[in-house]
């Protein structure tokens, strides 16, 4: 078979537009959407030059559709002018998936933010892509329902963005990532036509196009309406905090709980530094002298939950847990979770910059991988904090630093490189929930062979044979000649 990934039809670059071309493009977008919702002034473009990751690029224009027809019109207009396009939700992604490359038209879906329909009996909702994750759960809370995927950014991230990245969150341990919660998506395909992938039927004829679309990071079109599964609120819900004087013991407890036949709703871990920092920041009641804490949540019916608490208590104690605390009420539970979800906000108190990684390792290898992560950070003289989804082995080493320090970025990147290599060497994967975007394209060759990538490129081509939708994302640079010149500033390859 081929030794390299062949060029695919979607492997193309787009030359920068001239000023005159830009003017005509923005004028036509204005005709399609209204002049106030198609913009190209430098300040506006700067706002959309990056997501929450480190890479920044450049958009040709930004537009704000309010309907499916307007999204389709924006895509068609971009194509007519020979420009690629990029769908964007809240821009909270961390892998550069929403960073504009090759001067695309950025199509922002934040104004499409209505919950269109809620079916209580059948437990689903149709929503527009700009609905914020937490807003959806709030909108159905009075019905005894919730939307299960809960990324840390859930107050800000949009369902459309969640679909594009197959977003996760703490409660995906038991309930699965976004992929398991999307029934159907109305999509503006890269050719500007509108279709519905999946549906309210359990299965569709032919291949699972919905399954391919979810997590495709904007390379296969833009979702304009999404049918999501809603979950019934559990009758019983308990949250536990276990604290340890030893990180290894906490990690061993994680695999011990799973091996004992229990899959908690969430199983999160924080190491010493982040625990102390969070406690100083929000006063969640975490022990400031712990080497690590586990935040565990179990839900379901009463007796099963009671049994689960006993399993956690037994496994934790056997592994040396200093205390096992069960939140007494909703206030205490919310406070414990507020601590976990405020972790990234707390970082700003100790360093101006951070680089958040995202790999997954087999959970039985957590102890050795965590040791390795600390050793790597020591070697590169970078401070590392660990706050992560331990239950599914999803590491989030947080490298904190002051970007003004000469040479620090090289060491940050070297540490990140080593963490990724370490994760892959124990049978892990590149990303558990952030995606590949621009950030990890180059590493795709470490996880996949040329033949593996060949079929993935074919999947991209199947949806977008002309390569207009969010070009240069996910698949490695080597398969896309010409990338090197157009790599945005800050891309780590």
């Amino acid at each position, binding site marked *: *078979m081929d030794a390299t990934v062949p060029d695919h039809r979607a492997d193309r670059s787009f030359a920068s537009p001239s000023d005159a071309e830009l003017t005509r493009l923005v004028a036509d977008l204005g005709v399609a959407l209204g002049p106030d919702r198609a913009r190209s002034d430098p300040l506006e473009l700067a706002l959309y030059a990056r997501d929450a990751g480190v890479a920044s690029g450049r958009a040709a224009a930004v537009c704000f559709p309010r309907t499916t027809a307007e999204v389709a019109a924006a895509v068609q207009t971009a194509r007519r002018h020979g420009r690629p396009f990029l769908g964007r939700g809240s821009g909270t992604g961390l892998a550069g998936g929403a960073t504009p490359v090759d001067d695309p038209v950025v199509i922002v879906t934040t104004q499409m933010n209505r919950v269109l329909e809620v079916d209580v*009996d*059948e*437990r*689903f909702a149709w929503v527009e892509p700009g609905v914020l994750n937490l807003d959806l759960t709030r909108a159905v809370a009075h019905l005894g329902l919730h939307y299960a995927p809960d990324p840390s950014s859930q107050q800000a991230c949009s369902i459309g963005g969640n679909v594009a*990245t*197959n977003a*996760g969150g703490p409660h995906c341990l038991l309930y*699965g990532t976004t992929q*398991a919660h999307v029934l159907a998506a109305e999509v503006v*395909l890269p050719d500007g036509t509108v279709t519905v*992938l999946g549906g*309210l*039927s*359990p*299965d569709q*004829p*032919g*291949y*699972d*196009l919905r*399954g*391919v679309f979810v*997590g*495709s990071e904007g390379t296969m079109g833009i979702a304009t309406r999404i049918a999501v599964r809603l979950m*019934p609120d559990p*009758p019983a819900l308990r949250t536990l905090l276990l604290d340890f004087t030893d990180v290894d013991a906490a990690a061993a407890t994680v695999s011990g709980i*799973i*091996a004992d036949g229990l*899959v908690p709703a969430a199983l999160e871990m924080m190491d010493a530094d982040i625990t102390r920092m969070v406690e100083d920041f929000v006063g969640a009641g975490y022990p400031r002298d712990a080497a690590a804490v586990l935040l565990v949540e179990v839900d*379901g*019916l009463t*007796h*099963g939950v009671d*049994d689960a608490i006993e399993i956690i208590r037994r496994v934790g104690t056997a592994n040396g847990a200093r205390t096992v605390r069960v939140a007494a009420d909703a206030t205490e539970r919310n406070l414990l979770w507020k601590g976990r979800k405020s972790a990234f906000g707390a970082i700003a108190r100790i360093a101006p910059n951070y680089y958040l990684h995202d790999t*997954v390792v087999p*959970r*039985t290898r957590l102890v050795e991988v965590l040791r390795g992560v600390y050793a790597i950070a020591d070697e590169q003289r970078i401070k590392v904090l660990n706050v992560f989804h331990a239950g*599914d082995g999803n590491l989030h080493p947080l490298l904190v630093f002051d970007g003004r320090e000469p040479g620090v970025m090289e060491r940050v990147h070297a540490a990140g490189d080593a963490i990724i290599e370490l994760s892959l060497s124990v*049978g*892990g*994967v*590149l990303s*558990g*929930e952030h995606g*590949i975007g621009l950030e990890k394209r180059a590493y*795709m060759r470490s996880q*996949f*062979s040329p*033949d593996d990538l*060949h*079929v*993935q*490129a074919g*999947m*991209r*081509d*199947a*949806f977008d044979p002309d390569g207009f939708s969010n070009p240069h994302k*996910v698949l490695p640079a080597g398969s896309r000649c010409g990338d090197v010149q157009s790599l945005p500033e800050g891309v780590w390859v």
Partner: protein
Amino acid sequence: MTRVGAVAPALSAAEVAERAREIAASIGSSHGPVVAVGAQTHWEVGGPVPDLEEALVVRAPSGIVAYDPAELTITCGAGTPVAMLDATLAEAGQECPLDPADPAATVGGVLMAGLSGRRRLRWGPLRERLLEARFVTGDGRIVKGGGPTVKNVTGFDVCRLLVGSLGTLGVAVQVTLRCQPRQSVALWTVGPTGVSAADVRRRLFNPSCVASDTQGVHVLFEGHADDIDAELAVSGCTPVVAGPIGPQGPWRGRISVPVTALRAVVDGLDGLDGLDGLGALATSMVPAAGDGVTVAWLAEWGVGTVHVASLSAEGLLAARALAQAHGGWLLREAGRLGPAGPDGAGPSGVGLDDGFGVGLPDPQIQRRLKMAFDPAGRLNPGRIPL
């Protein structure tokens, strides 16, 4: 759900790799159709199977490559019988709810057929189970899709594309599956008289299955014994103490309809009169079916699946027409569950030879996907009518 049987033998990664190379080489040195053969328990699903006399027949290896209960994942040869996989997992108190109608089915066969089991309401569709697949494409590439960890968003989702692809995209050689703890109690019950399935479901938190047929409502509970007792009390369901455990049937067709249309489809099936009755088939194999029922059916509430059977081709075609009228479709279901009908029609699904009965959505994308994996169209031609 507990089954007792032989556990699967060990299989080395080297053996799997060798078999993959052999399959790739045999594809590369031949022409014409390629058909992966497992236990042949799902061959009635979809379009007709190519003539094996004319095809290159390949088989996936059987056995467990890796299993650590603390990972809640298992890696096995795609040719491993589900019964053996189940017995292996049971030893560690775990399971993977593939739930084929016939446990002799191979893991790869179940995944490729894509028919989710009866416990889908609680445990989700089959496509959520496949974490990593190693397979051989139609042009002889040995390809890995997905990854071995329980969480993974690296690259495009090859695994979800493979599930339900009826062997038309690749020959599965090895798969890694997401497992779960086996629940301590599993109990089939019947619902209270006069209460609809939808109403029973509304009273419950997370039943594993809420189904109904012409006889009534069937509910499967799994979990802690005391929790189940409490759920029985609030729902009015009573355990099945004698006779068939859970709803049974020689189902020949599987209707997928929008969950919102299930009620209408069930009402429509009830109203299908005037065609040939189920006769002996109904009384001997479908305890739920009464006299004069033309199409026996079993509806899964909250899912949108309706299993149907009929002694006549007309019955199945009528069921299909009904499904289509409500925005759904009908796929032939797995066979080997009973004798052919008097005219040879019903049980084998004759009359549904076109497999899907509806056009595929977004056919251009589907065809391009097929091209990416099987450019010469050699893998199981005809099973998915592209």
